[in-house]
């Protein structure tokens, strides 16, 4: 069972996150860069939340950003000042329109909303596998986007949600990402996580040993939804504004790219992927605005505007072809050291 050695798999990623957070908050880093560090940490939260389901169950979910979306809107709508609500979100249900909550409460709310939504969606959907599951979850994304973009009783509808308190500084981002990573680790080490992984390898065998696949997937889905919602709360408090489009296809693509690039099967993969793609994204952003001297020299000018996503897509495609299991090959964080004879190798 889990021992001290396995904790390395948690401590490694957490340490990396803390280092990232620390670097970002150091004085010499300019404020614009700080935004990107925050963004990278929030991305880690979103991607790890997705990993909790996809990595453990082996079932692809194209619609996970729906949970990020409902979490983000829940946290956002409930933290804007009550006086401003009639302007920014006219038409809200009175229960929502007349109350506001604080930062921490909004994050909890986001997690609850995400988790409950995932549970509701999961009950029918977890029966499906493979292609049908992918398409069904995509349809959920479509429905969620459509409703969030139009239904003014629960949110701003087509308008932009603004004046959301920007409480996700580097501290909240680091702590939040660490919390999600810890929850993911705890889950995959638990009985439930192990059962689900067994079903990923061989559904028939797992079923035969009494593992109730539908139920295990549902719990993972719900947990993943709650973590996604929480990450959505972090997201909206980092951005300060929110539109339905911000949590739709672009984010879905980016999140999937990060997970796949890092390696779908491991927690470390999710963290690495999120940080690597965020770093690439930042680099390309700077290359576009002419800040990277080397790029200017090679191209004769800054990188073409809009090529960020092209760069990310190309990177993702290349990784997929060369390293189908991602940068981490689906393995967990390990401190490289000599193995003593007779000691078993701890694999995820």
């Amino acid at each position, binding site marked *: 069972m889990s021992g001290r050695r396995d904790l390395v798999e948690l401590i490694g990623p957490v340490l990396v996150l803390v280092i990232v957070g620390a670097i970002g908050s150091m004085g010499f880093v300019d404020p614009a860069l700080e935004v990107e560090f925050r963004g990278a940490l929030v991305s880690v939260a979103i991607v790890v939340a997705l990993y909790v389901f996809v990595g453990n169950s082996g079932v*692809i979910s194209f619609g996970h950003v729906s949970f990020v979306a409902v979490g983000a809107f829940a946290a956002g709508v409930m933290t804007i000042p009550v006086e401003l609500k009639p302007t920014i979100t006219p038409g809200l249900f009175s229960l929502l329109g007349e109350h506001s909550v604080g930062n921490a409460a909004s994050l909890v709310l986001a997690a609850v909303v995400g988790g409950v939504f995932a549970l509701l969606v999961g009950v*029918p*959907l*977890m*029966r*499906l*596998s*493979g*292609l*049908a599951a*992918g*398409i*069904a979850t*995509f*349809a*959920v994304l*479509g*429905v969620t*986007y*459509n*409703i969030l973009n*139009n*239904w*003014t*009783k629960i949110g701003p509808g087509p308008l932009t949600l603004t004046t959301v308190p920007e409480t996700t500084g580097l501290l909240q981002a680091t702590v939040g990402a660490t919390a999600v990573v810890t929850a993911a680790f705890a889950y995959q080490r638990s009985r439930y996580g192990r059962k689900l992984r067994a079903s990923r390898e061989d*559904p028939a065998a797992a079923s035969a040993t009494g593992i109730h*696949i*539908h139920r295990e*997937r549902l719990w993972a889905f719900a947990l993943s939804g709650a973590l996604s919602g929480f990450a959505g709360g972090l997201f909206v408090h980092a951005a300060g504004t929110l539109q339905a489009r911000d949590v739709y296809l672009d984010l879905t*693509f980016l999140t*999937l*790219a990060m997970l*796949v690039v890092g390696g*779908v099967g491991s927690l470390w993969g999710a963290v690495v992927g999120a940080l690597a793609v965020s770093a690439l994204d930042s680099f390309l952003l700077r290359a576009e605005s002419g800040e990277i001297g080397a790029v200017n020299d090679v191209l004769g000018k800054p990188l*073409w*505007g*809009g*090529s*960020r*996503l*092209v760069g990310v*897509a*190309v990177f*993702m*495609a290349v990784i*997929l*072809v060369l390293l*189908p299991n991602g940068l981490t090959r689906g393995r967990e964080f390990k401190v490289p050291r000599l193995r003593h004879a007779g000691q078993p190798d701890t694999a995820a």
Partner: protein
Amino acid sequence: MTEDVQVFVDAIALGSIYALMAVGIGLVFGVLRLVNFAYGQLIMAGAYALALTNDQPVLLSIALCFGVVLALSLAMEFAAFRPLRRASPTTMLVATFAISYLLQNIALVRFGAIGKIVVVIPKLSEPVTIGGVHIRWITIVTILVAIAVFAALTLLLTRTTIGLQMRAASIDSQTARLLGVRANAVITTAVLISGVIAAIVAVILPMAVPERLLVSPDYALRETIIVLVGVVVGGIDRLLTATLGGFTMGLAVGLLSGFLPSTGTWPFTSSVYLDGAVFMLVIIVLLLRPEGLFVRGRRAAVERV
């Protein structure tokens, strides 16, 4: 009454376009087991080719459209489909998703986000009155073209050797190869036919659907998503069921957009919720029949847990 007929006929035309796209996607899936998320980008490329040659003679414009789409199809096959042939279905899905994004953003960089008008054959947008009902010429043309394509394809698949080989490869590609069927020839043929269909859609779509008059980087993305969903709902394993699935989605979208009122405070009660309503229907169908709406018997690309 006549308005209802109009809505119905328009819905059939839309269904025909979606059915064509479904065939394009289904053909490639059959021989490669690969779902091409980037199919819409082929149509986008064709539409851009048309838009940029607005001032040229129509036939030249259309020829260029076909050329661009076919070239891009082959490029996709060599650069992406071949290397990914051994990958897992998930990887392939995500990879074509990435390609779709790549192409969208290349178009964004090259052409900008503002749409360009595509003018092909303006005459076809004019209406003709049949029995008191106003139908645009393009609606009739669309349905006829779709029927012609399906007829031609059926002939190809049932009467020719390459068609037989494609059918066999869709059923059991391993055994087909062991009999001497050349995998590359079959795949390239499927990709080319799929490309031709995409080019046809690129020519028809700007005229048939008013919102699609302008081509932008995300052209045909919405349609691709809905068709993909429809193909899976119909039953992706067989070309016939996949096509019926696509057609049904188009029909549903057409009917819903025609009959939903334009305002309503609750979700699904007005036309802004069209997409949501369609997706909800999809979810319901997938739950009731995950193996496919039109599939008879057990055969499925999808397992139930």
